[in-house]
């Protein structure tokens, strides 16, 4: 067994060497012109310290409520949230009455009624967030040909390849926030100026954190003081982006707290169980050379 482990380590070392060399060789090749980058995003997103990261991560309810406000007042003008029902907003710390009132603030199409006609009514907690556009074609037509993605799962649907050896290290550091880091970086990346000589296609906006080109169709979505916070939280783009990203992580992974809490119990149980199993195994085998 020991020999196998040593050999495994040797194999890994060999692989590490080869791959590290490979990454270097790759990087040397891409040290191309600043104005014509070939790998995106141009800048790596900053790794943030999210409340929901790590084994004991939880959501900050006040932050989720602020994020919801940002989504409602800004993002929802173009981005749908089809998978999220109003009833689930009670997770954000709202009472039943508050959820009802929030839902009632939306108009939802229902029907057909007894006369066979579709009608509009105020939203109920059982309804889902209505979409800003009737369909994808309408969304594309209103946004220069690009459909603003549905935001329900965005925080899990984005993420960057971490490369070697980072992806191995990530297992031990439990890094699972590539999506939120990406969204946060993108929201804060609009103020950067493109390098001289770079061509920005008409109707697009430079953002060095965008993962598929030098620029994207979405213009800078939010500026300081655009959304009013009642609790005295600073009304900066940085704060807005952190709040809305946290909210998007919640919409993508509403059971995250439950998952991590359960996980801790499961891991502790299995650890104790493993120790007991090991001791039993030693006792059973104690009179047999093997």
């Amino acid at each position: 067994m020991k020999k196998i482990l040593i050999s495994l380590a040797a194999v890994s070392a060999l692989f590490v060497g080869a791959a590290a060399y490979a990454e270097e060789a790759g990087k040397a090749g891409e040290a191309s012109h600043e104005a014509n980058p070939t790998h995106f995003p141009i800048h790596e997103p900053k790794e943030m310290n999210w409340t929901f990261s790590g084994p004991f991560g939880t959501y900050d309810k006040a932050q989720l409520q602020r994020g919801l406000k940002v989504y409602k007042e800004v993002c929802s003008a173009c981005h749908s949230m089809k998978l999220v029902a109003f009833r689930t907003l009670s997770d954000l710390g709202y009472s039943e009455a508050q959820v009802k009132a929030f839902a009632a603030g939306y108009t939802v199409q229902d029907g057909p009624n007894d006369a066979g006609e579709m009608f509009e009514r105020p939203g109920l907690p059982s309804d889902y967030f209505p979409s800003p556009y009737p369909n994808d074609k309408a969304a594309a037509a209103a946004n220069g040909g690009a459909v603003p993605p549905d935001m329900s799962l965005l925080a899990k649907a984005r993420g960057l390849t971490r490369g070697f050896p980072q992806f191995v290290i990530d297992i031990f550091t439990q890094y699972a926030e590539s999506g939120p880091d990406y969204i946060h970086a993108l929201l804060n990346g609009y103020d950067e100026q493109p390098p001289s000589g770079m061509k920005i296609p008409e109707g697009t906006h430079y953002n060095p954190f965008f993962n598929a080109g030098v620029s994207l169709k979405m213009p800078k979505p939010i500026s300081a003081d655009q959304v009013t916070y009642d609790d005295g939280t600073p009304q900066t783009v940085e704060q807005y982006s952190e709040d809305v990203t946290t909210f998007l992580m919640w919409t993508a992974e509403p059971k995250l707290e439950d998952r991590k809490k359960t996980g801790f119990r499961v891991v502790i149980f299995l650890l104790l169980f493993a120790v007991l199993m090991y001791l039993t195994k030693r006792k059973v085998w104690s009179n047999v050379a093997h």
Partner: protein
Amino acid sequence: MSEGHSTYSPKTGLGRWFDARMPLPRLVYDSFVAYPVPRNLNYMWTFGGILSIMLVSQIITGIVLAMHYVSDTSLAFGSVEKIMRDVNSGWLLRYMHSNGASFFFIAVYLHIFRGLYYGSYKAPRELLWVLGCIIYLLMMATGFMGYVLPWGQMSFWGATVITGFFTAIPLVGDWIQQLLLGGFAVDNPTLNRFFALHYLLPFMIAGVVVLHVWALHVTGQNNPTGIEVKSKTDTVAFTPYATIKDAFAMVVFLLVFAYFIFYMPNYLGHPDNYTVADPLKTPAHIVPEWYFLPFYAILRAVTFNIGPIDSKLGGVLAMFGAIAMLFILPWLDTSKVRSAVYRPWYKLFFWLFAANAIFLGWLGSKPAEGWYIPAMQISTLFYFAFFLVVLPVLGLIETPRRLPNSITEAVLEKNKAGSGHPAGAAAAPETKG
């Protein structure tokens, strides 16, 4: 080992009544209690048990998921999200199932490499090995179809790319592809038949597992020395010895599994699969699940035409050939010595092969461009050379180390050298470890 005398004697009247009519308790007793296993098995021999519980776990979580899943292209993605959001513990079931597939493959790869290292595929265990290869093949089909079911971007485009391979086959290729897809492109009929097959195949796997275990119980287990069991002192009873060791290994394996389920459930997946499938929008980078990556690299290594075989067919042949190598492995290795422990050169090549396989996996995740292509080609060449050149030739020219006379001798020798404990009489060794 081989059909010895059954030592089962029912103690109760009911037991005797049963035994005379349908001796199922006898079968269980002989197979999992009294069954003799070599006393020197190390932890690499615990993956058989681990794989069994993974199969059961996948089937149980899968059946419950199927109660909530809808195999319709317009509803599939949403139904999976309903499971994640509204079904009680649905997130747990789904993460157990999706990560379970990965851990099933982690275990099977360790199991296969164990067999390679200790020569478990050699006579008289060829059939046991081939049955294992069939299970592996069925697992790949199951895993691939399961990945299509959530109907995300990678589901759709992975299915498009992989079923596209079949069009490379001359004459019947297009027909096979259309049969698989139920049409001319991946669409609702594809999703429906994949769901049906994804439900069916695990039970076929379970069937082949029964044959695999049956074959195992006829030949008996191989062991780290690769020497056949010769006397009773070479073995211990399955229960309690192997049972408790397997149980400990299972708990440790489950611990790692749980770490992924609860703390990084999406680490082994692809973010693009959280975007609903869009036939009009190709992802920048189509990659299969990690466990297919070495074969994906081999597929893309063939970038040139060979005579009448164009590069596409060549790639597909290379990929299927890579799997076929495993099937014919027992007849490629010419060495009479099983275990790499006594084969210095084989041991070296084995580890090179393992490193190469991991490297191929890494290359599989990279685009086929720049220096990655020659790297894929060299790695592919080594992969095939290992089976077609190294294994046949090495057996003829290699001088193996001196083999111990028996498992018992090997164990006692090791303990004497390892711990400095005086090895007791062969019948009553006092050492522990």
